[in-house]
């Protein structure tokens, strides 16, 4: 088996050129899926008999919350790649994902809080999901702060890698302990997302939006990575060539 497909990722130039094309595809695909999924969810999915129209926030909240967690896991994979294969692009990906992941975490927190108002009667309750999402946000924030504090990009990348790996080991423990803590004090009377049975007309737009947000995240991360690659490689000859030609 040839390992070329893997070693290609070591070349920032190869990545920069390919990623531009992938980004274009992802961007349009995400736009179409998100427009279709959101309109479907907002206008065509049936009304929930318990929560009324407020449940339509689910079509944004759930995909975004999924992604906020998945992106931390993706960062951990990047950290492993960085330490095992010393691939600089993995560090670029970590940097890009941290910012995008924080934005998704904030969006999921805000949408959860707004959904809480008509459902629980208050914007914030110390519900297990909201609390562990808040902690996740602080973890993302810590990563961004750590990178900003260390001048040398290589060193900053490795420090962030260590932090991500320690964080990803801790994250399940945090999640379970927060859930346990929540039952210790007061069990949440109403759960936001766990519906016993959801008819297909309700979950199908959700599926479209989940896919759409995943692809949108890929689009955003690729875009951020391309900008970071150009910034870091600004002294490389291929970047000068590229800019000179344009």
């Amino acid at each position, binding site marked *: 088996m040839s390992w070329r497909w893997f070693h290609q990722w070591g070349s920032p130039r190869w990545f920069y050129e390919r990623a531009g094309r992938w980004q274009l595809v992802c961007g349009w695909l995400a736009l179409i899926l998100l427009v279709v999924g959101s309109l479907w969810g907002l206008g065509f999915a049936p009304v929930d008999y318990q929560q009324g129209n407020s449940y339509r926030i689910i079509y944004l909240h759930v995909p975004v919350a999924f992604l906020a967690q998945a992106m931390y896991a993706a960062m951990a994979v990047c950290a492993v790649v960085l330490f095992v294969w010393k691939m600089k692009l993995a560090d670029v990906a970590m940097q890009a994902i941290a910012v995008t992941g924080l934005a998704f975490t904030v969006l999921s927190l805000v949408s959860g809080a707004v959904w809480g108002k008509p459902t629980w009667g208050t914007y914030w309750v110390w519900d297990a999901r909201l609390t562990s999402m808040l*902690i996740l946000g*602080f*973890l993302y*924030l*810590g*990563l961004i*702060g*750590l990178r900003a*504090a*260390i*001048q*040398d990009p*290589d*060193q900053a990348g*490795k*420090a962030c890698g*260590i*932090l991500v*790996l*320690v*964080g990803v*080991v*801790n994250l399940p*423990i*945090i999640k379970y*302990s*927060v859930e*346990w*803590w929540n039952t*210790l004090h007061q069990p949440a009377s109403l759960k936001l997302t766990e519906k016993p049975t959801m008819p297909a007309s309700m979950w199908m737009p959700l599926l479209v939006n989940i896919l759409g947000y995943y692809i949108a995240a890929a689009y955003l991360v690729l875009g951020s990575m391309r900008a970071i690659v150009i910034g870091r490689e600004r002294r490389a000859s291929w970047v000068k060539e590229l800019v000179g030609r344009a």
Partner: protein
Amino acid sequence: MSIEKRMLARELKLAAARPGDIFKPMWFLMLVISMVPLALSPDSVLLADIGSAMIWVATLLALLLNTEHLFQSDFSDGVLEQWLLLFLDRPLAWLVGLKLIVHWLFHVVPLICITPIAGLMLSVPTDVLIALLMTLVVATPALTCFSGLGAALTLGSSRSGILGVLVMMPLFVPVVILAAGVLIRATDGSEILPLMALLGAFSLVAATLVPIAVSAAIRLNIGGSN
């Protein structure tokens, strides 16, 4: 003399030369505790209710205060570099672990020792106070390790401020929750041993694994500086 003994002797000398480093966090702890009745109310029933949790949080903050610069002086005067160059027969993680243990003995145990006084001042009942002391003894090794990692990660940055604390604090969540669980059970008068065992297990795992991450962070900063 073995490295371990030499290190202990050195830390003893440093502690004797700078007693303020040990004293100041204790001072801070007592100040925070005195602010609680001032901010809330001098009502002893109310204070007894939240007292143990307040003492826990205050001790956590005091611990962070003195662990923030755990490796800073050793880093700037080249001791860490010497560890890397001279003690080739010992893994760096082992030396880091020793440093953390010594730090815990000299800087964290004194903090724990004055918490009973704080407990009396907030009229925490005796059995809860005993549980509080036990949770602190069992949980602080994990907290020391994590904040040590924060200190090591931000070593190379001159303008980090309290960044190491901010970065590490989310990881304290399980420890704080377990300790709070023990305190709630102690207040109810139910069995606390299973939760203490869990807390101890977490501390033990943290104490074995985190020094490895700390040593990687230190190596990174020394490698980056030359």
